[in-house]
């Protein structure tokens, strides 16, 4: 298990945080996703044998936000 923080841009409101967490937690390999709207950060706990940072960034981009590792 690995914990990685991502910087998120493009969240209009706290509900976007919920969208991101929901989408990531539905992804295989992601154990937990915690997004703070105020801090513009998502903390993801995931199994690196199943998923990568790159893939996570891609998922976040697909639902309309931009992400980068911090």
């Amino acid at each position: 298990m690995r914990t990685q923080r991502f910087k998120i841009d493009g969240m209009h409101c706290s509900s976007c945080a919920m969208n991101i967490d929901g989408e990531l937690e539905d992804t295989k390999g992601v154990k937990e996703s915690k997004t703070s709207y105020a801090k513009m950060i998502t903390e993801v706990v995931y199994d690196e044998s199943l998923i990568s940072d790159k893939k996570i960034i891609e998922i976040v981009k697909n639902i309309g936000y931009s992400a980068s590792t911090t």
Partner: protein
Amino acid sequence: MQEINLFAIFITGLVTGGLTCLAVQGGLLTSMIAQRESTIASVTNAKGQNAVPILSFLFAKLIAYTFLGFLLGWLGAVVQLSLSIKVFLQFAVVVFMLGTAMNILNVHPIFRYFVIQPPRFLTRLVRRQSKRTDLFAPMFLGAFTVFIPCGTTQAMMALAIATGNPIIGATILFVFILGTSPLFFILGYFASKLGEKLHNQFMQFAAVTLILLAAYNFYGALALTGYSFSDKGPQQNLVASDTPTISINEFGYSPNAITVKANSDVSLRLDNKNGSGCIQAFTIPALGIQKIVPLGSSATVTFRAPNQKGTMPFMCSMGMYRGVINII
């Protein structure tokens, strides 16, 4: 206060609320519809039957929020908010609205903290509901959105508490959510998204509306502190009375000026003929007096007039309808 304020709230819902809440609630709505379509399409091959689930989603949402408004207004009433707490609450609502507007306008990241993020167990619960495909799913989901209010909705919720009246609280949220509904319906029905540019323009308009609403509330809050906007001092040749009467009408207090002698005991009679809404809560901020006179009833307020000659404003609980007491 009622009409203009409710209209502003409706517009805020139509523009800001619609957009700020759409991000997630709209996402839930469309994902729910997509799930339904993939299930139903395999059976009946019918597409575009989205109106019913969207309407039931919006209807349930409207009911849930109206109920929430009722509860919040009731909470404000039960806690027996003292006048000073009401003033404080109303200023807090103003600050909250301005903070939300500043956040929409991206003035500074610090304003992001004005947006309250709902606890995770609630967001998970709501999300789980969105995956159901049965007929009641859209209704459940619509009602569940009360747990994930957006920033603008939160400002309206604060406003509902500040009124301290379940009916007005319910009305505020009803009107606001009604305002948010058209955008939800359109975007839900066409399952489309606004372009980035149009979205930004909408948001700016929304922020301006919020600022105006905040200014309006600020004016009311300021009045409640007892601050007088046009203190010209008492007029000449006034006749004082120890037992004045004020009628509460639909659009104000009549007369809107009474005269009492300094340091005298005054027994003020209040007749509520056809005043509903906040005008029923007759308030003299300087003396900390607030008397609620329900529609069709009468009440008497007794107080000792101040020693100092001058004027003392009276008003409704929101500071919108006013009048003045001349002390001679």
